[in-house]
Structures are given as structure tokens and as C-alpha cells.
């Protein structure tokens, strides 16, 4: 059977797709809580069919409003569609209620949108990171592809190589870090965490969100 496929020039379809649709494109995302700030970071690789890297400027973190960001891993097309849906819902919310969404509220909206497709899901796992628009309290949560939230007070990760990402975060994370320190920690965690994963990497992007300031920096890492 393998030979037949090779003769048809179908070599690439041997095993890859059967593995996992969540590994088709590749991503790594981390979010961390600091002192009155949150940070969210992602890699920049965009691959097709696991083996081919097609772009190295693929943004996986999307801005909902000044103090609310959502990062999405998984299938790229679902990432794009979902981020557009989230923007849609938030725009209407802002028009009707005349205020910006709190991160917890937004996380519930995301969860709801994902669960609507419980038996034919979007193949994307989101990470929500933000500050309460009024109190400035940090909030982060991760979710599986059908919307089960897991809010924490320290960090959340998602992507193809979650084990590595968890590992580096567990060792390097400290509570109550100031924005610049938090940037340093999350950047190092991301770069170290993606090294063992061939589906993520090729640089990274970090956003550190505080009440009055936003730090966005692009990371240069191993381009492989």
C-alpha cells in the first residue's frame, strides 16, 4: 500500500494526517500572571502538513481590547475563524453595554462558542489573558477545544508540546513579577519550551499588559 501511494506521488500522506489534526499547523502559547500585569506569548511558525514550514510571521495572539488578548493554538483555519467570531461578539457587546468585556466574561463567551460545536468541534485551544477594565486585576485561563476552562493564578500553556512548556514554566515562574521581569521570564520559557518541538518555534512574540502600558516585543530564537 505504501508503494502504491509513493507511485501516485502521495508520499507525504503516509502517516501525518492520521496523527492529529491539532498537530497539522503547529503552535506554542504561554500566558503568565505578574504583579498587576499579565503576559502572553506565542511562537510564529506556520506549517502545513506538519513537515513544511510555510510562514514565520504567523500571529496567534489576537487583541480583543486594550486589556484583553486571546491566543489560539491548533488548526490555523479554526484559529482565524474563531478570532474573527470573538471580535464580532465583543464588538456587539461593547456597542450594547457601552463598556469593555471583563476577561472572565470573555472567557465564558469563548467557552460557550466552543461548546456549541461539542459534537463537531473547532480544532483550536485558546488561552485568554487580560486585566479587569475597572480594577486592573489580572486574569488568565486555558481551555480545551470544547470549552472546559482552567483558570489559574500563575500560568497556562497550550500547543503541540505542552509537556515541555509546562516544564519550563514550573521551573522558571515566580509570583508577583514586575512587567519587565515577567517579560524576561515568559520569553525565556517560550524559547526554551519550543526547542524540543519541531512544530513550533521560528521566533516568538510577547505582549505584557499592564493598566497603563503595553509592551510588545518580537523574539529572535532558533530558526528551525
Amino acid at each position, binding site marked *: 500500500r505504501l508503494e502504491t501511494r509513493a507511485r501516485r506521488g502521495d508520499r507525504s500522506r503516509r502517516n501525518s494526517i492520521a496523527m492529529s489534526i491539532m498537530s497539522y499547523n503547529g503552535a506554542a502559547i504561554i500566558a503568565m500572571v505578574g504583579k498587576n500585569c499579565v503576559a502572553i506569548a506565542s511562537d510564529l511558525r506556520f506549517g502545513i502538513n506538519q513537515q513544511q514550514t510555510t510562514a514565520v510571521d504567523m500571529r496567534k495572539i489576537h487583541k480583543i481590547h486594550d486589556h484583553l488578548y486571546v491566543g489560539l493554538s491548533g488548526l490555523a483555519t479554526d484559529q482565524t475563524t474563531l478570532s*474573527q467570531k470573538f*471580535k*464580532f461578539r465583543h*464588538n*456587539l457587546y461593547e*456597542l*450594547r453595554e*457601552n463598556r469593555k468585556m471583563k476577561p472572565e466574561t470573555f472567557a465564558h463567551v469563548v467557552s460557550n462558542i466552543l461548546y456549541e460545536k461539542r459534537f463537531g468541534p473547532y480544532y483550536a485551544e485558546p488561552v485568554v489573558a487580560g486585566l479587569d477594565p475597572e480594577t486592573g486585576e489580572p486574569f488568565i485561563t486555558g481551555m480545551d477545544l470544547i470549552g472546559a476552562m482552567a483558570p489559574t493564578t500563575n500560568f497556562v500553556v497550550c500547543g503541540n508540546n505542552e509537556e515541555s512548556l509546562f516544564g519550563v514554566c514550573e521551573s522558571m515562574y515566580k509570583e508577583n513579577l514586575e512587567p519587565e521581569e515577567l517579560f524576561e521570564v515568559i520569553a525565556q520559557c517560550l524559547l526554551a519550551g519550543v526547542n524540543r518541538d519541531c512544530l513550533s518555534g521560528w521566533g516568538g512574540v510577547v505582549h505584557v499588559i499592564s493598566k497603563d502600558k503595553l509592551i510588545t516585543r518580537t523574539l529572535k530564537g532558533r530558526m528551525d
Partner: protein
Amino acid sequence: RSSTHIRAQGRVDAPQASSTMARRYDSHTTTFSPEGRLYQVEYAMEAISHAGAAVGVRTDHGVVLAAEKKILSKLLETGTSSEKMHKLDDHLGVAVAGINSDANILINSARLTAQRYLMTYQEPVPMEQLVQTLCDQKQGYTQYGGLRPFGVSFLFGGWDKNCGFQLYQSDPSGNYAGWMATAIGANATAAQAILKTEYKEGMTLLEAKQLATKVLKQTMDSTKLEAEKVEMSEVGWVNAETKENVEYRVLQTKELTALCDEANAEAEAKAAAGKK
């Protein structure tokens, strides 16, 4: 359908012993009169002529919408929501004249249309598209279903990449048109007349605001214009030099007070000069 057939349907409302021909044809929204008029639509416009006035002025630097507040009471909780001005999207706002509850339905529908367009095309909805979709909805209520028309007229002010800053007016019939300056609501014809003489090409946004204030003052019942009785919003560049983004913005009390004081002073000066 002949008129006898309609009468036979047993409508309880219209008294048969009435003077004008209109009575027989005005209870069904979706029927023409013998003179070719849709009475329900005209009655809806009549309702709007009793509502607070709204004025719109378009310039190359932005669009100004000004309106007279009808509900004035110290007991009213003002909050953040407005009586006459509503944002439809980042680049679009409306001023309302007519039945507010009807307006809310249409505004909600317009907001959904704008977001759906943004979702599909990933660019902000062009103004005329939105106005047309809303007007198609209004028109439906004059032709199908036997429901009464919406008793609202809108002034849409906004910007899009294709045609720049635009001002549109729509009425209960579902007709709409683009204007350089126009007015709806109470004393609209008087306001239009003033706009016709005073509007000039190439006005700045400030001059447009001053013109809108002046027109409102002359068409409102009171002699002195006060900031509490007026609402104003504008769609203009966030940064006039870079011209990157437009935003819909409701004017704050401070700016409104300044404009009202200016209009009052000008009127007083004119009156004093006239007396001499």
C-alpha cells in the same frame, strides 16, 4: 381586491360614517389608496414630525450630527446611554427622530449587519450598504405582513474607504438619500431652509458644529440654547494629520456648552443689531 371586499373583512376600527376618503384605506398598511398613497407610511412620518429635531452636516473632515432632547427631567438618570445618538460601528453613528422603541430594534439590526459584514469581508461595512440593508427592512414593513411601519427617521453619519465622509437620511417608507446637510423631526422644513442658505462647501468640522448648533437653536422652542437640551456627535479623524482612523464620538458637556454659548451670543448680537 375591491373596496367592498376589504370592508367585508370586518375591521372594527374605521367608522364608516366619516368625512374623508382616506379612512377606508388607511388601516391596511400594505394597500394603496386610490390616489396612489400609502397612508400608514404618511402617518408614520407625521409621528416623526412631532419628535425632537435632528440635524446633520457633512464636511470633508467629518460629519456632525446634532439633536434636540425631548425628554428633559431632573429625575432622569442620564448614565452613559444617549436618547438620540447611537453608535453603529467604529466608523458610523446615527441620530434618531421618532419612536425610540422602534429605533432600538432597527439600531440592533444595523449593528448586527455591520458586524456580519466585518466578519465576512474583514473590512468595515461601507455606509451605503448598511443604510440600504436597513431601508430594505423598513420597506418590508410597508409591503408585507400587515404590520405597521417603523415610526423612525434616521440620520446616518460616517466614513468609508470608497466614498469618504457621508451623510444619509432615511424615513419610514424605506427611502433614503445622501445629503450634504439635512434635518429630520420637528420643524425639519424650517431647519432645511436655514441649512440651504447657510451651508457652504469646504467647511471645517468646527464650522459644521457651529452651523448645526445655530440651526437647532432657531428651530427649537426655547429662546436660549442649553447644553442639557442638546446632544451632538461627530465622526472624524482620530488624528487630522495622519488620517489613519476615524472614530464616532459623542461630544462632552464642556464642548457642547461652549458651542451653545457661542450660538446664544451670536443670536443676541444679531437681535441687538436688528433693533438698532
